[in-house]
């Protein structure tokens, strides 16, 4: 400790004036912070540049062009907030916001609940755990397009669930969510859950398995029911895993696009529109770049509104804790 005290009191570190005093002390002085871990810093430079140029740069470019009237090609003729006025006056956009809200809420809740329940069941040391885990995780390995098509077939009234149940004798059974304005979003939700909960389950299972076995013993001796142990003791203990799951699910929700394309292409009518689909359609179908950019800027703002307070709470508050 004394060494660093001397070197820092003799003026700025590494300044020429301090060299003389340093020379009399054959002690390694504290290296400048800039040069600590130099190799790893150099190695990070390309990544940092990539992030800055591609991610930040392109984001700014998109935001800027959302204030223009670009059509097929980007051009910088600013029209103020005109694109945003059109956007919020557009029925399709409003439908997609509503759909996203329904899909997002349900997807978040059910992914967490089902994922945790499956993990808790697997944790009860059942037989064939590996088999179950593979089966449940398997859909995650598929692309959203494949999932979407598979579920389009399963939900298709001509050869899916409806057909099977009718063949069993229930002639009047109707189950056709993908062709119903009202229920189409739940058809997409089922496919999304089928694909996504496996990963959540695996994350949660890893978290649960990481908990000291003695915790379970202690709670059994105190006579706390298993479900209560999970809810009141285990869930708070695997908080980091849950936070990770929430972030993963949320990013999946915002990006939901391929699933809609494969299952319904936004139909029937516009009833299964999603914001990402709206962006893609405006940019490439309607050749209305600025409108697409305005929609994607709104998505960015929405994500930022959710993420920034969360990131602040999760990472920024560290020092004041404890």
């Amino acid at each position, binding site marked *: 400790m004394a060494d660093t005290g001397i070197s820092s009191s003799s003026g700025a570190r590494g300044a020429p004036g301090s060299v003389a005093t340093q020379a009399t002390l054959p002690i390694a002085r504290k290296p400048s912070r800039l040069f600590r871990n130099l190799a790893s810093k150099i190695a990070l430079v390309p990544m940092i540049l990539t992030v800055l140029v591609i991610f930040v740069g392109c984001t700014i470019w998109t935001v800027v062009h959302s204030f223009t009237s670009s059509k097929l090609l980007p051009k910088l003729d600013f029209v103020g907030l005109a694109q945003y006025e059109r956007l919020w006056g557009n029925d399709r956009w409003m439908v997609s916001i509503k759909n996203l809200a329904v899909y997002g809420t349900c997807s978040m809740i059910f992914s967490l609940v089902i994922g945790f329940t499956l993990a808790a069941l697997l944790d009860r040391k059942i037989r064939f755990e590996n088999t179950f885990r593979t089966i449940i995780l398997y859909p995650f390995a598929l692309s959203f397009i494949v999932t979407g098509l598979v579920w389009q077939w399963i939900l298709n009234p001509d050869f899916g669930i409806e057909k099977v149940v009718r063949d069993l004798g229930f002639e009047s059974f109707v189950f056709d969510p993908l062709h119903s304005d009202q229920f189409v979003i739940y058809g997409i939700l089922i496919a999304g859950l089928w694909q996504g909960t496996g990963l959540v389950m695996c994350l949660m299972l890893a978290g649960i398995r990481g908990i000291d076995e003695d915790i379970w*013993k*202690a709670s059994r001796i105190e*006579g706390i029911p298993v479900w209560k142990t999970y809810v009141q003791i285990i869930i708070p203990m695997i908080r980091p895993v849950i936070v990770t799951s929430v972030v993963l699910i949320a990013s999946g929700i915002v990006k939901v696009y391929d699933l809609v394309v494969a299952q319904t292409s936004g139909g029937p009518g516009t009833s299964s529109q999603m914001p990402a689909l709206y962006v893609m359609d405006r940019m490439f179908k309607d050749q209305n770049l600025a409108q697409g950019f305005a929609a994607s800027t709104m998505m960015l703002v929405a994500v930022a509104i959710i993420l920034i307070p969360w990131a602040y709470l999760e990472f920024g508050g560290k020092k004041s804790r404890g």
Partner: protein
Amino acid sequence: MNTMTAVNTESSISIRDLTLNFGAVQVLKRMDLEVAPGEFIVLLGPSGCGKSTLLNCIAGLLDITDGQIWIKGKNVTWAEPSERGIGMVFQSYALYPQMTVRGNMSFGLKNQKMPQAEIDARVARAAEILQIQPLLDRKPGALSGGQRQRVAIGRALVRDVDVFLFDEPLSNLDAKLRSELRVEIKRLHNKLNNTMVYVTHDQIEALTLADRIAVMRGGVIQQLDEPQTIYNRPANLFVAGFIGSPSMNFIHGAVKGGKFYAEGIVVDLAGYEGGALIDRPKAILGLRPEHLTVTNTAVAGKTIAATVEIDENLGADSLLWLKAGDNQISVRIPVEDRLNAGTSVHLEVDMSKASIFDAETEARV
């Protein structure tokens, strides 16, 4: 099958013919153990000998393969852990990290729907006994290891049970804290006077805490006795070697006509406290380092001639390593009596404290 006739209803814990298999491995082998009310029993043995397994069986955390467990005169063999009237303390503390100390201690009671006033009273009493009142509103993460273990003991204490089970509660603490908390556990036992079963691999803990020690090996209790008996009259070679530090000196030889013969050594066995000394072609003489004294005068049949090799200063006393024929012998001597390497001395044997083992059966004679 075992009969129920012999179950001792006087015992606090009664284990009858207990067997536990993990798959094909038999971890506990037909074990019997009676623990009197208020007794402090220590299960001592090397790692992996089945101590924790036995404790978990008593607690009901493991389903036993065969046998019976009785606690306070009730057959609890198939009872849930919470119904057995036990409290348990673990090596890893097993506190609930998101709850305060108070929350940890009251969680189980709340779950039993106990009135809040009663919970508060119990927590306050336990906190006072363990001197953790200032910590009640802290979380376990903000406590030291010793404090955490006190809280874990407190959590068992508030249950107001007759039987306490400890699974190596001090093994995660440093030496100083360990000896402090050891004394505290002893004090707790004196105060509460309930039955305690305490698992450890540390013989100092066992010798200081126990009313009786059960020395285990390979799922079998080798000896169950008071600490002094275990120390002075180990039932077999394993117990003799496991207890005592430095370990007992073993000299291989033969017993013939009331004398013990080994290479260059003849000792008269008169005064030996144990069984009849019939002739044995293969026997082992066990002598603890503190039961030998260094003298300059040889007495035929009473002393062993030896040469000093190393003198280790242990602070309070000194440990002398000597060579007697082929045998390495250690002797504890006062620090002032230190001797130089190469000195020839004679070791006087206190035959009343010696042990003789049959080399075949390894049992004490």
